[in-house]
């Protein structure tokens, strides 16, 4: 699998070709539209991330030691950002997710260009993904200890 930071670098490069913010948004809208709608069972308050002004739902499974995220939002640009995060984080081990720094958000200027409330929402999303990773790591550790 491609290196975590390589994917981040690719995202930054993809965005750098757009001169106008509206083109960047158009790209995010495309990404958002391409991300499948989350299963209704996860579209509940239990999976809702606090701190976002629009609704974001997030769920993660551990399959063969790798995380598989399912996420969705009721706002399409936010869903595009969610899609970027999912693309980056899916298929990673919990350790990879917890160890690697996220630089692409700053790299594509998303943080500066989202209002503080929104960028808090973005941070809340990342935090939740890392919490899933941490929880699965602890669970794996416990299972190993029992073996």
């Amino acid at each position: 699998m491609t290196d975590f930071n390589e994917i981040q670098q690719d995202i930054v490069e993809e965005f750098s070709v757009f001169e106008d913010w509206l083109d960047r948004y158009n790209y995010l809208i495309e990404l958002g539209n391409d991300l499948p709608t989350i299963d209704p069972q996860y579209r509940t308050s239990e999976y809702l991330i606090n701190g976002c002004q629009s609704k974001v739902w997030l769920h993660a499974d551990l399959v063969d030691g790798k995380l598989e995220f399912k996420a969705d939002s009721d706002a399409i640009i936010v869903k595009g950002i969610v899609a970027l995060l999912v693309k980056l984080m899916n298929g990673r081990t919990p350790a990879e997710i917890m160890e690697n720094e996220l630089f692409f958000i700053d790299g594509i200027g998303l943080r500066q260009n989202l209002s503080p409330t929104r960028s808090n929402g973005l941070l809340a999303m990342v935090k939740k993904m890392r919490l899933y990773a941490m929880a699965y790591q602890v669970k794996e550790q416990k299972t190993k200890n029992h073996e």
Partner: protein
Amino acid sequence: MGLNIEQIRNDFPILQQQVYNKPLIYMDNGATTHKPQVVIDTVREIQEKQNSSIHRGIHYLSEQMTSRYEAARETVRAFINAASSQEIIFTSGATGSVNAVAFSFGEKYVSDGDEILISEMEHHSNIVPWQMLCERKGAQLKVIPFDENGELQLDRLDDLLTDKTRIVALTHASNSLGTINPVKEVIRRAHEREIPVLLDGAQMVQHGAVDVRELDCDFYLFSSHKIFGPTGSGVLYGKEALLEELPPYQGGGDMVDQVTFEGTTYNTLPFKFEAGTSNYTGAIGLATALDYLHSVGIEEIGRYEQELIRHTMEKLKGVDRLKIYGEAKHRISVFSFLLENIHPYDADMILDKMGIAVRTGTHCTQPVMDHFGISGTIRASLVFYNTMEEVDQLVEGIHRTIQMLS
């Protein structure tokens, strides 16, 4: 004579800038308005040359500052045509003013089983202080509903005004629906039962002349920063006889007469309600803003905004897939709308990048959103420095937003 908007816009330095390399189109005036150069200069001049605590010293600067502060009170009195400057209390803003009345009036006149009447379209700041009072006193909050156009259901009023109603607190103009309420009618009917009425003028004073004596309201209040003055300042007007009866809501310096450890006697009006060093810079800046409005012409502003309203409504109604929330006949230039199947935050993010500043969310009126079963709206709120061309650009931006998100 019409307004020369181009010339007026030159008075507001903040409007001259570009955002994301596009001219700023500022339509979030319901949240806060910009300051004309004269207000900015006044505030700076006070800091540079005159700053001194009011009502305290007899030295030169203090005397000067005190007389400017009291002159500001007189300017505010004249602006809303109060009978006496003793009826003008400087507060921290509209929210501070409501809280002052809710506390002082509540202490004096509200007890267990009493009722407070508000409306369904109130800003949270004209709901929560009354709820807190109700909790303190065991009173009950009653609500005048509005209809699908965002107009008050006056036919419900006679049922809602009861022997237990102690006060009616009503917004003069709605910050999310744009409705101008039939306040004179409400006041007349409340007064028939000897119930005082408080009007929240935070969204009204910047749009046209307000005459508290003609309205015959018992309390009127507004914020400085929404009428082109500095933030952190506001006004509470109250009829003198009523204010005389009310206990102070904050204790501290300046509001006292004699202080001993055995007890304190209070200063006279209006100082009884101005504890601590008041925001004199804000008050004087506000007076400068009011003088500026007079120099532009308050009647002319009202007339121009009527044209702006007509133009905006016509343009917005021409957009397919756009639904307006609040279609009252009498209205201010505040427009709430949603685009079909489009999340308002998506629309706001795109409009922002076009240099258009609108507001998205509940606008501190969650019950209004609940009424329509929506989570929020996009709100464009205009004042007299907005142009017809800006409205056209907003509508163009909306079209492009719809295109991008479909």
